[in-house]
C-alpha cells in the first residue's frame, strides 16, 4: 500500500521532471542549455523505466535502461563536440 503510493509518487515526480525538462529545452537561450535539458531528460527517463519495472515487477527493461544511459551520454558528448569543434569525430 505505502509502497505503491510511494511508487506512484516517484513516478509522478519523474514524469513532472520530464515536463520541466521539456520547458527548459524549449525556453533555453543557448545550445549547451538545451543539451543539458535533453541529457537530464534521458536520466529521468531511465528513472521512469526503472520505476515502471518495479511497478510491473518485471526486469525485462533493464537492458533498455542501460542502453539509455550509454546512448544519452554519447549523444550529449556528440552534441557538445559539435558545438565546440564542429567535427564530432576528428
Amino acid at each position, binding site marked *: 500500500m505505502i*509502497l505503491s503510493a510511494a511508487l506512484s509518487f516517484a513516478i509522478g515526480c519523474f514524469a513532472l521532471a520530464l515536463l520541466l525538462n521539456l520547458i527548459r529545452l524549449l525556453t533555453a537561450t543557448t545550445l549547451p542549455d538545451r543539451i543539458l535539458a535533453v541529457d537530464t531528460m534521458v*536520466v529521468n527517463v531511465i528513472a521512469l523505466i526503472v520505476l515502471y519495472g518495479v511497478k510491473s515487477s518485471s526486469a525485462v527493461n533493464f537492458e533498455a535502461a542501460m542502453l539509455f544511459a550509454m546512448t544519452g551520454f554519447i549523444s550529449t558528448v556528440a552534441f557538445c563536440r559539435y558545438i565546440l569543434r564542429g567535427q564530432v569525430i576528428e
Partner: protein
Amino acid sequence: MSVVAELVIAALLGVGGLFGLIGSYGLLRLREPMQRLHAPTKATTVGVGTALIASALDLVWVTGAVSWHEVLVAVFLFLTAPLTALYLAKAHLGRTINRNEVPPTGTGADWAGFEATPDTPKP
C-alpha cells in the same frame, strides 16, 4: 514482505523522486548557465541512483534473488556524469562565457578549453 522493508523501499522511492524533481526544477530556477549545470548532474543522478537501489531492493524482497543490473546502471551513470558535465561546461566556456570571467591557471599554460588547437587556424 516485511513492513520495514516496505518502508525502506518506499522512503528510497520518495527521496529518489524528490531529488529527480529538484534537479529538473533547479534547471529551470537557477539563473546562470554554470549554476544550472550543477542541478541535474547531481540531484538527478542521486535521484536515479536512489530509484535504482529501491528497485534492486524491491526485487530482492519480492523474488529473493539479488539483482545487480540496477547497480550496473547506477555505476555507469556515476561514471559518465562527470564527463557529461565536463563537456557541457566546456561548451559553456567555449560558446557562452566570456573568458575574462574565468580566473587564470596560475601556471604558464592556459586552460585546455581556451587553447587554440595547433592544427586549426582560427579565422
